[in-house]
């Protein structure tokens, strides 16, 4: 199949792909499944009862990558999709999801992705998800992703999400349940501009003996947006949990951080940190003494912070 230029740009933005790759791949275009490729170890099967796909990764699959980009270029479309990922025992894979909305019209475009991950015993997963919005229209670009993660014993998952520009409204919910010795690392990056709105919520149950999580959100609120960060970590066994919200606030932005840690076991070790503040004046001055203008200094500081 051939992609037009807008679609090609989006694919490059969200997944770093310059063309449709060989290997496991599923492209969802304007609310329809446009292309699906399975491989020997990774099977992508459309759901029959609701929109979405099941992705089966065979036990022991190593070093393979799955791309499942979503691109929306039609205005006035609301797309709801359910994707379930079944990662077999001892598999070690990379999944790159991403959603780009190009809204040139005046109606709202919305993508709500509900992703469920099931990691088998000893499985390792890196999951990248990037959300981008663009388009000259006045129509809103909305994304409300839900991620549900179930981790069996000794599994490991690293989740990196980024929403850097162009999404007017987002409500993001991430729920996870960890088994014995499972590890979940989450790095989230959010930048809001204008009058954008972003809520992100983590709910992590540390149920297994010796499991642990490290959930970090870094965000920048510029112009006049509103952001909320809510995290709740439940330590139900001997476990370790760390949650961190670090936000830079600029102009008239507002940021709420609500970290919550709940220990239900004497050997649960839980830490939360939350810091919100503007760019320190001395940081700007330091970079200005290197010859940068105030605006260039601000860009460097924000880019570094969200790297």
């Amino acid at each position: 199949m051939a992609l037009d230029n807008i679609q090609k740009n989006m694919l490059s933005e969200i997944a770093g792909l310059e063309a449709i790759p060989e290997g496991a791949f599923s492209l969802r275009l304007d609310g329809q499944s446009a292309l699906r490729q399975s491989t020997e170890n990774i099977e992508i099967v459309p759901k029959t009862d609701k929109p979405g796909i099941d992705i089966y990764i065979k036990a022991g699959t190593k070093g393979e990558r799955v791309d499942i980009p979503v691109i929306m270029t039609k205005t006035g479309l609301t797309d709801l999709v359910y994707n379930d990922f079944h990662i077999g025992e001892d598999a070690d894979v990379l999944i790159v999801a991403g959603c780009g909305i190009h809204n040139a019209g005046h109606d709202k475009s919305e993508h709500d992705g509900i992703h469920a991950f099931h990691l088998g015993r000893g499985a390792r997963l890196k999951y990248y998800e990037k959300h981008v919005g663009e388009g000259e229209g006045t129509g809103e670009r909305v994304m409300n992703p839900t991620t549900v993660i179930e981790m069996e014993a000794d599994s490991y998952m690293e989740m990196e999400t980024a929403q850097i520009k162009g999404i007017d409204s987002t409500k993001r919910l991430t729920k996870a349940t960890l088994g014995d010795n499972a590890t979940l690392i989450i790095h989230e990056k959010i930048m809001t501009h204008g009058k954008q709105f972003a809520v992100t919520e983590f709910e992590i149950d540390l149920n297994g003996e010796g499991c642990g999580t490290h959930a970090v959100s870094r965000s920048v609120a510029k112009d006049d947006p509103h952001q909320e960060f809510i995290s709740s970590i439940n330590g139900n066994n001997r476990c370790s949990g760390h949650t961190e919200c670090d936000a830079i606030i600029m102009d008239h932005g507002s940021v709420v951080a609500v970290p919550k840690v709940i220990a239900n076991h004497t050997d649960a070790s839980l830490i939360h940190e939350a810091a919100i503040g503007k760019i320190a004046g001395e940081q700007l001055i330091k970079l200005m003494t290197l010859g940068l203008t105030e605006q260039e200094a601000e860009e460097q500081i924000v880019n570094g912070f969200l790297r």
Partner: protein
Amino acid sequence: MLELRNVSFRAGDEPDAKEIINHVSLTIDQRFVALTGPNGGGKSTLAKLIAGIYIPTEGQILLDGIDITNASVTERARMGVSFAFQQPVRFKGLTVSDLITLASGRKLSVAEVCSYLSEVGLCAREYVNREINASLSGGELKRIEIAMVMARGTKLTLFDEPEAGIDLWSFGNLITVFEKMHEKINGTIMIISHQERILNIADRIIVIADGQVRQDGTRDEILPSLLGTPATCSVLTGKL
């Protein structure tokens, strides 16, 4: 050449506000000039006035004959003023290599970044990709700060108490950095310090107290009186 003409600085707008810098006039064209004197005497304020972080309430500042009194920090930086802070600033996410590259104003190879780090006694390989965050100690930050101004290589470089926040042992190693700098710079280094070993390599020593120049002369003229008089000693020995 740096020229301060009758420069004063008052904090706050009230007419009775204290003069932090009180009618200071200096012409500086030596290679290595040390500013010393008691804490709270106005040394750091003077450096900030030269760097453009503060603007004088009275008087003029000239760099190579050009009036820079009202030039911004950025403009002065581009004209050739560098400033190593007493308290280096931390940046979440930016790396040592990012800052040294920004300082140099051009694209640097990893080898070039490393050579600046080696010059300040840091094992380059370990530091190049480190974030300038809370994981670095005060002494490490100080060295990186110095590497940054060296990468700029401007005609005027200000150091505000490079010894502050560094234990004496580490500072001993850092002295050699300044001795080396003294040998090969083309411009002027102005360094605020209480360290005898720094004062010892200065071509000129200026003593600032109560916002005014109290003594000004060559090392041979000034140093004996600084180290000799008990009155001054009580102020300075704490720092030595």
